């Protein structure tokens, strides 16, 4: 099925600026299309227009232009009719899953279409087979891994037998092997004749399946359109312009690297950990030293123990054997509140922590909990906001009124206010586009008052290559490799052993 978009323009209610302006595009049957662009560039709005949520669920805004499926106008179709043509897979599989068991999840769409039982069962099995989840049908949905959940969610959409698939950031929560596998599935579905439209921030990964069409949106308009080769060239041209910032970062690393590395900030000694509810250990004797000047990319497949290790560092989890030391002190003699002044941990999703009415209250939460004086807290807040580049936002504003990118910066700032020596960032680029993520990290590494060492937990290997001076690769609760980025990431043997090849 081809999708034709002509002069599409949409303005959300109570906004002056249109979210999409005069976008015209054609997606052909059997093609893969990649849509990129910064947060707020109109990608999600475009998807909502194609799948009919605009104007059917968002009736208040102003819409003009045409969308046709295989030449037929869509304006008279109901959402249920559209759902038979186009399947939408949302960014976070967890938000899409409605059933407790995988079988019921895949059956949900066909059930809503009121199909006969036999046909539903047949469709569930064939869609499950198509996405290789047929062995998971009896499993409870919340026990599946991220990659499995996503395959199940796609199968659930395929069971409605759509001719086109819209994928909103399908790679966001996947580790590199799962992401590669997912991309191969998308290409295969396109080969079977399904139109694939994919919005993705991880464009370098997405380019691996050579999308026939790449579109970049900026401020609601098309900024680039072409095939994969043309898009690569376009990206490379732009990277040269952006090169100054990484150079600044290299200077920073040279500076830190030049001082003799004697300053040990955080160390794990043969640390073991097992969750009380699990029979399998999460960490099997991890030893790792973090020195001043280290920018460590902690990588590995999902479930390798990366987050568990970081939770040991700040004392949320305590090792069942072995130990953690902060400088000279043993972490077991310290409370979490004491530890977090030495080691900061920024969680992946800012929504997990933001709670206050004003930015001032939000940012002073940490300093107050750790017993800082008001003057010290005020000073640290100003410095932290400058580091993350939000110094111009008044502190009496509500954190909930900010964009996702700004909230993510506030989350980082709210940990920086405690002035930790080591800063742990869990998936610092998740949900951020390339430029925004790079800018945040560059600032973190270059500003006055920045932490002395940074650990990034990430699936984004390009980020690791670009910013880290050390890459630590974990698998099944143990460290597989620890070395310079090129020595780990370019070593096929090591990457295979680490489950990332």
């Amino acid at each position, binding site marked *: 099925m081809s999708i034709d978009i002509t002069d599409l323009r949409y303005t959300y209610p109570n906004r002056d600026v249109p979210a999409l302006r005069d976008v015209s595009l054609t997606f052909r049957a059997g093609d893969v299309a990649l849509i990129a662009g910064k947060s707020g560039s109109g990608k999600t709005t475009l998807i909502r227009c194609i*799948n009919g*949520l605009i104007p*059917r*669920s968002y009736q208040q805004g102003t819409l003009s232009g045409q969308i046709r499926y295989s030449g037929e106008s869509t304006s008279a179709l109901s*959402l*249920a009719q*559209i*759902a038979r043509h186009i*399947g*939408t897979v*949302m960014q*976070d599989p967890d*938000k*899409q*899953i*409605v*059933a*407790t*068991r995988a079988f*019921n999840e895949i*059956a*949900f*769409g066909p*059930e*809503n*279409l*009121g199909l006969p*039982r036999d046909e*539903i*069962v047949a469709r569930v099995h064939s869609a499950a087979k198509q996405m290789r989840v047929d062995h998971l049908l009896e499993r409870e*949905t*919340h026990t599946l891994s991220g990659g499995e959940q996503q395959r199940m969610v796609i199968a*659930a*959409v395929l069971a*409605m037998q759509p001719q086109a698939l819209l994928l909103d950031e399908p790679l966001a929560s996947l580790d590199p092997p799962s992401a590669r596998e997912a991309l191969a599935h998308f290409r295969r579905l396109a080969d079977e004749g399904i139109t694939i439209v994919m919005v993705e921030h991880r464009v370098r990964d997405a380019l691996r399946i050579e999308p026939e069409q790449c579109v970049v949106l900026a401020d609601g308009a098309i900024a680039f359109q072409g095939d994969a080769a043309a898009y690569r060239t376009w990206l490379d041209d732009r990277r040269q312009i952006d090169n100054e910032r990484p150079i600044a970062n290299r200077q920073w690393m040279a500076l830190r690297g030049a001082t003799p590395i004697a300053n040990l900030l955080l160390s794990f000694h043969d640390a073991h950990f097992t969750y009380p509810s699990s029979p399998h250990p999460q960490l099997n004797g991890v030893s790792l030293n973090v020195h001043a000047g280290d920018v460590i990319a902690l990588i590995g497949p999902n479930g390798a123990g990366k987050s568990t290790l970081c939770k040991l560092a*700040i004392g*949320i989890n305590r090792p069942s054997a072995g130990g953690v030391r902060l400088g000279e002190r043993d972490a077991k003699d310290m*409370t*979490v*509140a004491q530890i*977090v*002044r030495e080691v900061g*941990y*920024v*969680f992946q*999703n800012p*929504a*997990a*922590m*933001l*709670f*206050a009415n004003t930015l001032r209250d939000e940012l002073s*939460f*940490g300093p107050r*909990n*750790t017993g800082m004086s008001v003057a010290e807290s005020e000073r640290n807040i100003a410095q932290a906001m400058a580091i993350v580049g939000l110094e111009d936002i008044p502190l009496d504003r509500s954190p*909930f009124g900010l964009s996702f990118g700004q909230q993510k910066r506030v989350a980082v700032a*709210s*940990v920086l206010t*405690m002035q930790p020596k080591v800063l742990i960032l869990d998936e610092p680029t998740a949900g951020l586009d390339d430029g925004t993520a790079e800018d945040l990290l560059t600032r973190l590494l270059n500003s006055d008052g920045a932490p002395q060492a940074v650990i990034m937990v990430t699936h984004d290997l390009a980020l690791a290559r670009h910013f880290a001076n050390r890459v630590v690769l974990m698998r099944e609760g143990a460290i597989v490799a620890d070395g310079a980025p090129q020595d780990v990431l370019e070593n096929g043997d090591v990457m295979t052993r680490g489950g990332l090849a």
Partner: protein
Amino acid sequence: MTLQSFDPRARLIFYACFTTAVLVAADLRALAGLALFAIAVLIFARVAWERIKGVWVGVVVFIALITIINLLFRTPLEAVQQALRAVAMAAISLAIIYTFDPAVLGVAFRRMGFPDKFAFLLDLTARFVPTLARDFRVTIDAQKARGYELELRERSLKGYLTVGRRFVPLIVPVVVRAVLDAEDRANAMELRAFGTGPRTWLQELRFQGRDYALIAFSFALLAGIIALRIWMG
């Protein structure tokens, strides 16, 4: 034969009749009988003791508290009545809830005549309990990472008052997230044609002889207890 082998509708009807009977019954012998019966059902349900140990501790504390209050402000008879009611309610609820497969909750209500949307709401609730629990755990960790401690610092009136406020950093992110996510979830369901017409419920439920027997027993029990209450005044 286990409790699970009964049709979920029969179990829900039994549960409704039994709890009503417990509320209606006033005679101590009848209440004691109901409480013993509920405990027997719980044993028969074979719920692992480990899973309900924590709940029972809470129930025992609750009963002790209620009993003390009743002894102070009401008659000893009422105190014993309330204690027996609480035991019967707790035992039967644990037996029913811990053996109930959440995946059949929605269809059970649908087949009892409730509308599609209401029935599916129950399925969704069951589905999102683990998600909410996970969000809550992540938020606790994220706030601990900012030096947050939940423990009560001073055991005074002021301390107990502040403890309520201390939950704000945990409750707000979880609630805000749930509300914001609800829009995405509603969209996701609409895009899969939910609520657009009569839907098929894949799961089939069929009453068997034992289900009719259980339902008959449930109503007989309720009728008996009501009759007893009227007869005894």
